């Protein structure tokens, strides 16, 4: 029990540090005033401009020292108020923007992880049962290729082959479309993220399977007359899944990063693409909010992976 409390405390500390760093970076390295007012912010000669500057400072608390500003931001953030957008005159408030965009990103990530897992497991089983043979070697080469290809390149390749040449899948995502068409439209973006992830998962699982297959209890199972296939599925797979699950969970963070690019390529209005847009517009509250959400999700997922691990391994049950 104490262990979990420590972990949670550490997680909270972590998130606070992330928020401090981000907030600090945005306000010290960037120029909030400039982002709100544009070039006007530098125009101190014009009395009208000066008045605007003063107003803006008051409204956005820019006249207060940095730690105070951070405190104000933090207290609002934990209550769910993520502030207002700098660049679009405050509309819509950041919270609403996030609420609107998150479902699409979640859909993308869930589909991607699902596809990656569903591809990886049979792939790994096939490779492990024919270890070192041609099938396995080809699969190793494919893994290498997939991992070496940057995800935006893969996205374009898939777009070209599946979308343009073969025309199996639609090219654009439209948020207003009914659910089933949206799922279909998500397939290619999800696949872009899923394929390299599947390659990594598969590689790990395959190696684990091969190691597990060397264990004594596998020989024992065979001596009972259990068929090769059954040994693979019923005896070797479950112990090998442990690191698999860990990797899948921990890799979610990487998937989040990958989704940013993919959302941009396929023009999906999700969290990732809004981050990029906000950054290009230097819209601090948005950037800050998204970064915090992503970091929080990341930390929570890691924690969750640990919890799940301790539950499913009967040896670890306390």
């Amino acid at each position, binding site marked *: 029990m104490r262990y979990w409390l420590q972990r949670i405390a550490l997680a909270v500390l972590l998130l606070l540090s992330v928020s401090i760093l981000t907030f600090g970076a945005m306000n010290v390295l960037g120029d909030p005033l400039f982002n709100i007012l544009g070039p006007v912010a530098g125009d101190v000669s014009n009395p009208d401009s000066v008045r605007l500057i003063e107003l803006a400072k008051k409204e956005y608390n820019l006249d207060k020292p940095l730690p105070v500003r951070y405190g104000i931001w933090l207290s609002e953030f934990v209550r769910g108020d993520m502030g207002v957008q700098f660049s679009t005159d405050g509309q819509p408030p950041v919270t609403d923007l996030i609420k609107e965009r998150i479902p699409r990103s979640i859909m993308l990530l869930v589909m991607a992880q699902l596809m990656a897992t569903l591809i990886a497991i049979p792939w790994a089983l096939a490779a492990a049962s024919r270890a070192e043979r041609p099938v396995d070697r080809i699969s190793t080469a494919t893994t290498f290729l997939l991992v070496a290809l940057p995800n935006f390149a893969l996205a374009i390749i898939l777009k070209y082959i599946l979308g343009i040449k073969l025309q199996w899948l639609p090219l654009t995502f439209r948020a207003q479309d009914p659910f089933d068409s949206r799922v279909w439209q998500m397939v290619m973006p999800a696949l872009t993220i899923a394929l390299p992830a599947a390659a990594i998962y598969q590689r790990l699982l395959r190696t684990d399977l091969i190691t597990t297959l060397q*264990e004594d209890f596998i*020989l*024992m199972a*065979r001596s*009972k*007359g*259990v068929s090769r296939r059954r040994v693979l599925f*019923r005896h070797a797979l479950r112990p090998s899944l442990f690191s698999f699950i860990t990797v899948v969970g921990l890799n979610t963070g990487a998937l989040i990063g990958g989704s940013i690019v993919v959302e941009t390529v396929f023009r999906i209005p999700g969290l990732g693409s809004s981050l990029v847009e906000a950054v290009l517009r230097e819209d601090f509250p948005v950037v800050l909010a998204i970064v915090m959400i992503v970091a929080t999700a990341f930390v929570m997922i890691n924690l969750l992976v640990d919890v799940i691990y301790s539950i499913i391994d009967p*040896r670890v049950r306390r």
Partner: protein
Amino acid sequence: MSSTANALQTASRQDSVRLLEVTDLRTHFRTERGIVRAVDGVSFTLERGKCLGIVGESGSGKTVLSRSLMGLLPSSNTITSGSVRFEGQEILGTSLKQMRRLWGREMSMVFQNPMTSLNPLMKIGKQISEPLRMHLDMTKQDATATAEQLLRDVRIPEPARRLEQFPHELSGGMRQRAMIAIALACGPTLLFADEPTTALDVTVQAQILQLIGEQRRDRNMSVILVTHDLGVVAGHTDEIAVMYGGKLVEKAPTRELFAHMKMPYTMSLLRSIPKLEDPSHTRLATILGRPPDLVNPPKGCKFAPRCAYSRARCHEEEPSLVTAAESPDHVYACWYPVGSPEFEEREAELANVPVRIGGN
């Protein structure tokens, strides 16, 4: 159908008494260093209901022998030759599919380390019922009931509860019993026990051996007991085969072996067992040297380099198996066995006592 009834039915099926006939079995492995002659010409027969003990050090080939007999070795890089007839059928070189029909059903194996040989993530009950459902087509309920009975047969307390537990929740001795239960599940006619007690406490060892003996008698099952410990085979076997360097160097009915052992190696094995009656700090008699290189074995008798009683001939010619004078069932391979004049001579030299020629 209970497991005992099963066993009896299997027993009545049998017409020939000879369960296992092994003729010149050789198992060689292809490795980077060369060909390892792990088992190099072993022959013996085993009758129904009898227990054969195979004794030898690490590196003698005894474990490879038991695995070869059962056919559990991987096919790549393994060359086997000779003949192994089980219930009259040749099983050496048969397909995996056919072997799988025998494994678990007609012949099964109990392994050395019960902690690593049991699936850590599968409940005990499931591990026992697996062969039952697979080979005997039992329903889930029947299999569970049979599994519980099996646990009772192997004297595990609270069998119903144990069915639902995982291996790590059992003690070492109980785990081994569970493994025995798994091996006995379908009522095999031949049980291989590969160092079944090595990983256990001394106190538990005796119980396990006794259990195996009991089950053997109850089921009229043959047992091949592989071990490095002569003490283990002393009380529980009908016949003992001693292996060295991949070869069979002595074989005799148990009592006969202990009464008239011929091979100096066997004698050294016996001498190296620590005895309770010895005074404290008695030096353990060990056999100096290491097992022979199985890739480039020495010329002549394999044990000669380490044998205190060896002479020139031992290093030149490999002795073949001859029958002992005392009993036709006793074979050994030695030029100057225990009791021979040359042996006595050397014995005297070692003890530094003047030789008495011609006496008893």
